[in-house]
């Protein structure tokens, strides 16, 4: 509610990211780095998917490069990319003033609440591959969706107790709006008066074309199909082992290595989808297989201390 002074308008994509990092750090979030694997959305980062489970409080914010192979447009589309950035905030339990905190982040990146029309429009979130769902909104700024706002209810088939509040900003779209840019490739990545000014296109245009070609026409589908099966098997094998490590004698539930395999399988599925080798009926079956992995990993995570497991008192 405080009438904070209207911040200046940022001048570049990276300035928006830096301001979000600074803002959420000031609100007590651990500012994490992106997860080092290919994911379809920031939610896949274990800092969200796994940490939303169990009773331990948690607060994190991070940028997550995300890949959606089917959205590739060879760098031509003004707003569609197969590789893009999401900014993700997760706080457990969700604080009562999460909406106000969120609006504060929009002010921090230069959106003047007195001139714009911000709306919370119903949008329930569901991830069939993660066996997860939540209720919330898409947040509109002057009719444009700038974020997803979700209260997680279930992840990996487990009820979230307490509930995490999750915010996801589509960074390119939000930045294009704030910076007044019509084509994503024209967006200044760093400051326009930097020693070497770089646009988003300077950084990504060619890569977008390269990946679009590979995703749509080149990726070896036989190898990918095999990788999918391998990831699935590895995940199951990891989780089948007893918790006690025979070498150290310690209790080590390998939830996160197993979850890595789930992430892999999910991304391979997205690639196969882009290659057009998955029929409509098979689609559901593949999604079900990834969901089964996500559920098994969630089951394992709640057996770790981060997931709320506590050693029995002797």
């Amino acid at each position, binding site marked *: 509610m405080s009438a904070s002074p209207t911040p200046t308008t940022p001048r570049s994509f990276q300035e928006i990211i830096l301001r979000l990092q600074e803002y959420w750090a000031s609100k007590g979030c651990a500012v994490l780095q992106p997860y080092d694997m290919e994911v379809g959305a920031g939610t896949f980062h274990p800092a969200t998917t796994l940490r939303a489970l169990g009773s331990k409080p948690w607060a994190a914010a991070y940028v997550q490069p995300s890949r959606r192979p089917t959205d590739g447009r060879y760098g031509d589309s003004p707003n569609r990319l197969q590789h893009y950035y999401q900014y993700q905030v997760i706080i457990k339990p*969700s604080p009562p003033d999460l909406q106000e905190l969120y609006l504060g982040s929009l002010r921090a990146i230069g959106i003047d609440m007195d001139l714009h*029309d911000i709306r919370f429009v119903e949008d329930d979130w569901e991830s069939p591959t993660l066996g997860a769902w939540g209720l919330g909104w898409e947040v509109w700024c002057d009719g*444009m969706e700038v974020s997803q706002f979700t209260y997680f209810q279930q992840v990996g088939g487990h009820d979230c107790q307490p509930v995490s509040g999750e915010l996801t900003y589509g960074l390119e779209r939000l930045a294009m709006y704030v910076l007044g840019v019509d084509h994503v490739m024209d967006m200044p990545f760093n400051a326009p008066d930097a020693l070497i000014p770089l646009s988003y296109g300077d950084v990504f245009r060619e890569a977008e074309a390269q990946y679009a070609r590979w995703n749509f026409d080149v990726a070896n589908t036989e190898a990918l199909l095999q990788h999918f099966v391998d990831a699935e098997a590895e995940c199951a094998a990891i989780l089948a082992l007893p918790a006690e490590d025979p070498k150290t004698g310690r209790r080590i539930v390998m939830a996160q290595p197993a979850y890595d395999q789930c992430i892999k399988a999910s991304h391979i599925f997205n690639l196969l989808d882009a290659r057009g080798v998955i029929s409509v009926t098979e689609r559901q079956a593949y999604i079900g297989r990834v969901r089964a992995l996500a559920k098994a990993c969630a089951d394992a995570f709640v057996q770790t201390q981060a997931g709320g497991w506590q050693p029995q008192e002797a």
Partner: protein
Amino acid sequence: MPDLLLELFSEEIPARMQARAAADLQKRVTDGLVEAGLTYSGAVAHVTPRRLVLSVNGLTAESPNTREERKGPRVDAPEKALEGFLRSTGLAKDQLEARDDKKGQVWFAVIEKPGRPAAEIIAELVPDVVRNFPWPKSMRWGAGSLRWVRPLHTILCILTDEAGAEVVPFSVDTITSGDTTRGHRFMAPDAFSVTSFEDYAAKLKRAHVVLEAAERADAIWNDATNQAFAAGLEVVDDKGLLAEVAGLVEWPVVLMGEIAEDFLDLPPEVLQTSMKEHQKFFSVRNGATGRIERFVTVANRETADQGATILAGNAKVLSARLADAKFFWENDLRVATSDINTWVQSLDNVTFHNKLGSQLERIERIKALAGEIAPSVGADAETAATAAGVAKADLSSEMVYEFPELQGLMGRYYATHAGLPAEVAAVCEEHYAPLGPSDDVPTAPVSVAVALADKIDLLTGFWAIEEKPTGSKDPFALRRAALGVIRLVLENGARMNLSEVLAKGYPGADVADLLSFIYDRLKVYLRDQGIRHDVIDACLAMPGADDLALLVARARALNDVLATEDGENLVQGFKRASNILSQAEAADGVEYSFGADVKFAEMDEEKALFAALTTAEGAISPAIEAEDFAGAMGAMAQLRGPVDAFFDAVQVNAESEILRRNRLNLLSQIRTICSQVADLTKLTG
């Protein structure tokens, strides 16, 4: 007489749930008040995106004292019985009274409940209503266990009378009731306290919140139509969108903007759908040209720049959306004009149902079937097959992928651009119809043929793989398809043998079972038109019942004749004749079916019946032959007088065996003649 004000203040409530929630709040609270013994003179509920509000006025200040007497076991009854009685009354033994009864001394319990203040009742009731509120979807938040549609922040609950306002004290989890609320999220976010509903509504308005949804909707509509009118344009009516938009704002501000020239040539439906679905904009039309030229968006606030920034932002988002739509439209037109069949061929990669093959295979089946059906609906078989072949081409188009609700309509545009004849292009749009009981039925013969083929393929296909509707489950909308077949046939007066047509559908379907499913839908459909289901049963038993037009013509005629006194009485006479006959036939072990001879007729009434039956026979048979069911039924109704007179005067079971047999055979003539018209034994009552 105090007034109650209750406000449940939360994060944004989905627009589609608001109206129902207001009604539920009103019902649950007022029911609870009445159940607790309070009365009230009026109640009204309101809802905005952030608050559910109930105002109850003229509430009684407390519930009345009640006194109830309950009779228990006899004083000398076993201890067990007394224990049970004490448990059920909540009293101790020394609180009971022993009274004399006819059978000796009996325990009586007098339970007196003092009245309770309204505040106490409300303090119990509201938390209960909140915890059990019937949201279609609810959620938890934070570390609590309370469920609400979105996080619930505050509860305002006050009772106001001449002495002033008092908070009704209670808590629900961590929320404690109070007398404060907040205004508009951005324009007046500070908390303020209120003392009555009038005070609340007035202060809210000052705090930029219009409490009444209807007032918000009216304001939006009036402002939108005025702005459009000033520009010589009109707003496209859309009640659903208006209600939704009124549920997204507490302080509506209507802004009208222009659609960039580039997009004005898109089909108006595309503009309208894109603007409505993605942006919740109203379309503003040029009445003279029918073109959509502007949009109306509804903001939730006033700004220092009169909405200029908001409007510019919205226009920009719209341009991006419409650029997508234009991109789809132009790509689609390229395909449509070069070879629209490439779309059809690519449907081979789209599964319709894993047991029923691809969309292309389905199209091939519909093509063949449409050709078969065409002659019976007056369409050219080849044109029908051609039309069926392209009817679903647009399912491969980018526009329909993006906006599935435009299927069919886009097909019509694309087929037209592909240079196909107008009647073929129309099929793309019309073959889906009718989609519901009130949707228009196509009348163009080619459209009728393909629409029928489409639905019959669907029905026979799912019948063949045993995926029939069960109870409330009908995932493939087969009931709708069956009703579609019925309405297409009846409203176009199409004559066809339905079981033969069904047999040409997907192989392996149990046609008899499917037909009886269609008959069940027909009964529901005709019942809504006032035709009794037993009347339909009576006609279903007749030959040619799988010609729906004939069946329904017969049913209507029968229904009409049954509404006349003669008709109704004749049916009674028929039943009497039929009962006497069946009893006699059962007793004698023979069938009385012919050989009645007027020369054995003794009485005048008997002779008159002979004569009347001959006349009726002469009229009914040719009328049936000519499908003149009204004529046939009329002739049958003429029998009422002679039949009634016969039964009044003549004893069928005469002593003379010759007379008896002759009269039974006469009765069998009644049965035979009437049974040409319908199976009257199926009629109830």
